[in-house]
């Protein structure tokens, strides 16, 4: 880990059901922002490597909406949708985020892009959900769309349990 100083940092509040994510990038805000609003770029990084992200709706403007699905081996395994509440170029995106498998749940996410010295960017993502149970389920949700293929084993465990 040669880049430990810039590794993702996470904070989960004890007071309110939020998750805060902080990460720095070696690119200026307009490009980090661009990779969030350009659907072709977004699809390249948002999903785990083992899945393909298929954008099904995309209007990255204030008042617009988005939706995408994750496919594995040609079959859809998960879908997500939300609204672009505010898109302020190179500075800020406020969107809602819902996992279609749990349509009553919604996270309100505020993304802030701050310019750092040397053409770098700090991204802050603050997610707010309805209650602590939902927040904790989100924290535990790495298992559902896990980055490590080993998590498939856990998926099987969960399926067997239900």
């Amino acid at each position, binding site marked *: 880990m040669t880049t430990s100083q810039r590794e993702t940092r996470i904070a989960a509040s004890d007071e309110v059901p939020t998750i805060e994510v902080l990460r720095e990038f070696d690119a200026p805000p*307009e490009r980090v922002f*661009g990779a969030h609003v350009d659907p072709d770029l977004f699809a*390249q*990084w948002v999903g785990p490597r083992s899945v393909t992200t298929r954008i099904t709706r995309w209007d990255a403007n204030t008042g617009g909406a988005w939706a995408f699905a994750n496919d594995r081996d040609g079959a859809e395994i998960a879908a997500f949708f939300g609204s672009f509440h505010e898109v302020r170029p*190179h500075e800020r995106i406020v969107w809602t985020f819902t996992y279609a498998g749990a349509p009553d749940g919604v996270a309100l996410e505020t993304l802030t892009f701050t310019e750092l010295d040397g053409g770098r960017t700090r991204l802050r993502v603050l997610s707010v959900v309805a209650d602590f149970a939902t927040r904790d389920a989100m*924290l535990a*949700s*790495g298992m559902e*769309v896990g980055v490590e293929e080993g998590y498939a084993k856990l998926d099987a465990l969960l399926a067997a349990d239900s």
Partner: protein
Amino acid sequence: MDHSTEQLNRVFAALADPTRRDLVARLAVADATVGELAEPYDMTLQAVSKHVKVLEEAGLVRRSKVAQRRPVHLDADVFDLMTKWIERYRRTAEERYRRLDAVLSRDTDDTDDTDDLRRDAS
């Protein structure tokens, strides 16, 4: 998958269920028998006992052989669990942002793409 990952996976699987999450929250306050744990729920003692067994197998709680007479004790430090959740979530986010790093560095190699991106984004 190493032992600690398997253990962690069992913990996640156990806590994926809302009833079991509730049981853990209540046991964090005080030990309770299966009968006491079952009181607030509209489910059989056997069903609650099964949930407790899953928690037990995940290493979250302990109880003696005479399960319905002896209190269930929460073994795990809930704050420690939260730390593990956060670390896994952090790793997921870090992996995602490394993919974004790769997208951003690819763009740098091609000036035309960067210009397109700027135009698209504004």
